[in-house]
């Protein structure tokens, strides 16, 4: 499987990272090097093997489905690049 410039452009878009057009061929090359390296996983017989979801066989703990924290909008917003009137502010989304 070889990654072309078009695929690199699509992946950058999906990842929401602006990649200048001139950098796409080099990026595609790097993807190919990495994916070429992982290609060898194809040699392994994985018939009937369960994909690992968690490394420790352990049942996740449960707790009451109740609010345990909150009521601190100033703290939540204190690191926001732009916050107004108790909300995160972003560029206009709807025309």
């Amino acid at each position, binding site marked *: 499987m070889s990654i072309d410039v078009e695929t690199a452009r699509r992946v950058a878009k999906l*990842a929401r990272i602006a990649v200048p057009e001139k950098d796409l061929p080099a*990026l595609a090359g790097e993807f190919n090097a990495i994916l070429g390296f992982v290609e060898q996983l194809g040699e392994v017989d994985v018939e009937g*093997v369960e*994909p690992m979801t968690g490394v*420790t066989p352990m049942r996740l703990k449960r707790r009451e489905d109740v609010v345990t924290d909150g009521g601190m909008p100033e*703290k939540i917003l204190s*690191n926001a*690049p732009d916050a107004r009137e108790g909300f995160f502010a*972003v560029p206009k989304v709807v025309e």
Partner: protein
Amino acid sequence: MTLNTLTIAAARDGLRKGEFTAAELTEACLSAAAEAGALNAVVHPTPDLARERAAAAEARLRQGDAPDLCGIPLGIKDLFCTRGVDSQAASRILEGFRPEYESTVTAKLRDAGAVMIGKLNMDEFAMGSSNETSVYGDAVNPWRRQGDDARLTPGGSSGGSAAAVAADLCLGATGTDTGGSIRQPAAFTGTTGLKPTYGRCSRWGIVAFASSLDQAGPMTKDVRDAAILLAAMSGHDPKDSTSADRAVPDFEAMLTGDIRGKVVGVPREYRMEGMPEEIEALWAKGREMLADAGAELRDISLPHTKYALPAYYVIAPAEASSNLARYDGVRFGRRAKLGQGDGVTEMYEKTRAEGFGHEVQRRVMVGTYVLSAGFYDAYYNRARKVRTLIKQDFDRVFADGVDAILTPATPSAAFGLGEMADADPVQMYLNDVFTVTVNLAGLPGIAVPAGLDRQGLPLGLQLIGRPWEEGELLNAAYTLERAAGFVSKPGKWW
């Protein structure tokens, strides 16, 4: 006396005997750190906070009944969120981020009376093996080759932690390890680094890279200190659903130096083609030392070892692409300057393009690709199946009676900063070839300094333990440490 050169254990005992105060100990580390700008290890010094905590620790010590770490100066990897103190995972995208909360591990250390001297350099988002992807610039290894003043890497991603401990800027440090990020830097700097069993330390409040692999652990001057620091960092945390609800043993009390009758496995698959002779010789020496201590050395096979790195380079980027989706320029950190008419999509794309460094962008995009429709099964699911097989390899040898496994820690000694600049990314990834299996299988692993190469650089051996048996593992490492008698320190040039 130069108090900053003490081990945690020696400082603990000295504080209790009244030989010096916590304030004096802290000042010694603060001045050592202030003079070590050339190492670029401490990237956000916190002297005021350190002095405040040292004073509080002193009061506690005088009352008696203080925990082991009370008054002990530590460095904290920049990946840990520390309340009111810059915590940016060495990334531009978290510039100016000062959390309103404290990670569970650093809260435990704080509550035990430890004194944070500052935040330590690392690879951006812990993605790297040389500390060269950091927004703060390279951390520098205090060790140099004999007769050569070339700057060497302290390893990565916990490069600042390793450099700070090796150069005596603090008595110990926290690190995190996703594929070898504690053990490889420890091996490169002649220090001790332990990655605990997955779930031993809470991940809450540690900036996430690959959540199924990330574990915090201690980086220290010796094995005893690793036992002390690990005990203080460990324990169940309801805020991390993968943190294990298990008692934390007294690891230090388990350091008896007696490993008679223990079975130590030597995996044949770790004998890599093209492995330097010195690494091979060190490994042989390690086997001999453990055998002399009364352990039974046994050849074992871990047949899927070869596939660990490729599986890792699917799973880790996949998890990273998901974890790093939160850096969107909305809730914290940096937002790119937007142009007229730019909407939210442009905000995301520009923010992430200027906020993430090259290696992070590459891994996020590789992760995006392997998780995308049409490739999920071929890459991500296949890698997770191979991960199951890698874990089964270990399960099998442990079931056969093996107590610990001995391997080299790294395929080479520390290399020069910039030396890998033109290499293929995969070349850099090969640094983790001996360490990454341990993360995939969730096991504890420790790197212990065991000798010097012919250029005078430290080399480390790795011991891998059974899940949850860090105490046994530390005892085997302690035995190896005593037999190796590694006491070399880097000559001070900085």
